């Protein structure tokens, strides 16, 4: 556990960049949206932007980067794969917990200031279905985990099996998803699927299902890294 903590600290030695990228990009996205909607005036009475997604995308890329760049470095310094994985998880989950808290806070401020005086929804969740405050917080946090663990898993496939592994994975995903889509169309299941999604609560879509997907991804990543070479 000690060594896992060391790995987490290792990834923070250049912390201004670790924190700077996600928040810098989110801030610039926010300011641009603010400027645009302030200048176009009443064209859209209650604008909602997708700008919040930027921080999630940056964190996904950061997780890919942890495997591609930090893994060979930490292994070179003599870390075990287990410590590296636990430490990276710790490092990332720690960030997700704090970042989700800040985002939640900003969404509260947004509501209190009447959408920054513009009725703008930037930090507020698109699904207003989540009313419970704990669930609202989790709705910010859990998608970080899903994307982050997805980033770890994909990058680890590349690290362990190289470009052939990536191509196999893409082919499998393409055939799998395409096949399911074909089957759904053939059997006329689309309305049923649409109905299923519509029946899900916001909490299930933003918290429950992502958490259920994130856990097996984390487990699979651990199995892959056990035999990965830097």
């Amino acid at each position: 556990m000690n060594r896992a903590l060391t790995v987490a600290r290792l990834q923070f030695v250049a912390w201004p960049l670790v924190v700077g990228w996600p928040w810098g990009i989110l801030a610039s996205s926010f300011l641009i949206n603010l400027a645009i909607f302030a200048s176009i005036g009443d064209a859209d009475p209650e604008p909602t932007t997708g700008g919040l997604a930027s921080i999630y995308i940056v964190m996904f890329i950061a997780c890919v980067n942890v495997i591609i760049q930090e893994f060979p470095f930490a292994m070179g310094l003599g870390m075990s794969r287990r410590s590296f994985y636990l430490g990276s998880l710790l490092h990332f989950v720690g960030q997700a917990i704090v970042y989700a808290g800040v985002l939640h806070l900003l969404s509260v401020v947004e509501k209190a200031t009447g959408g920054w005086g513009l009725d703008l929804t930037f930090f507020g969740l698109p699904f207003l279905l989540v009313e419970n405050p704990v669930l609202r917080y989790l709705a910010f946090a859990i998608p970080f985990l899903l994307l982050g663990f997805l980033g770890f898993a994909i990058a680890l496939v590349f690290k362990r099996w190289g470009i052939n592994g990536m191509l196999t994975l893409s082919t499998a995903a393409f055939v799998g998803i395409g096949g399911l889509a074909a089957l759904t169309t053939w059997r006329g299941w689309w309305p049923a699927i649409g109905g299923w999604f519509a029946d899900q609560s916001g909490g299930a879509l933003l918290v429950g299902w992502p958490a259920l997907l994130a856990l097996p991804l984390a487990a699979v990543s651990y199995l892959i890294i056990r035999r990965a070479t830097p």
Partner: protein
Amino acid sequence: MSPVVTVTDLTKRYGGVTALDGVSFSLAENRIYGLLGRNGAGKTTLMQILTAQNFATSGDVAVFGQHPYENERVLSRISFIKESQTYPSALRVHHVLRAASLVHPCWDEELAQQLVDDFRLPPRRNVRKLSRGMLSSLGIIVGLASRAPLTFFDEPYLGLDAVARQIFYDRLLADYTEHPRTIVLSTHLIDEVSDLIEHVLLIDRGRLLLDVEAEALRGQVLTVAGPVAAVDEFTRTGAELHRVLLGGAARATVRGDFGPTDHDRARALGLTLEASSLQDTVVRLTTATNGAAPATVGATSKEAVR
């Protein structure tokens, strides 16, 4: 005293390529080993397996008595500096040193700072903007300042100028004298390190050709020159590794268990005789026809030649 490293019948195959072929040896505590061999001989693979960065196909390794794979107790006592080490692109030189200090329990910050000055490394420069030589010196600083009980240097000098290499050798020897530890130095610049190395491990095509004390090896390989008949007479007592003919004269490299009587005999035959340098020895052994190594070997050496 139990050995620091024990390797038993280690084999590593990559697809159809055999990188290591039944290698066995052990490393004693507090010595400097020279791991020598040509490009692609299997040196890096061997060190990667010893540090659990790669996996053996068959055979056993024990480091500090245990298998290194996922073994914190073992891994925290190893420092492995390799030429191909990459660094996260966000890091500056001082970040890398900070990271290494977090990882290595015996880290000496004062030594690290002094080496940064010695090698004239700009501490605030991004690692991606370092020249090849500067990158090498960064690795060397990490390797020396980590003071790990088992330290591997895998061709650490790439792009380093002669002055910087000399600083490395001097610092290595000085720090080793003060803080003895087991050091494995893999290098191509054999003549430069021949005074440093206490024990020679020579690998060729994945096989261990030599596992011998440097001192013992020095007397074992001789170069004799003189009339062909006299050279023929002398080389009968050893195994001839190499010969150059120049008219009626010959110059031959011979390996055998030579003593003072052999030196007298050479003089009596009218031959000039000199001990081969370590580099010559390595070159002759790895290029000797069909790898046929001599049968006569000293009591201190072991052979793994088939």
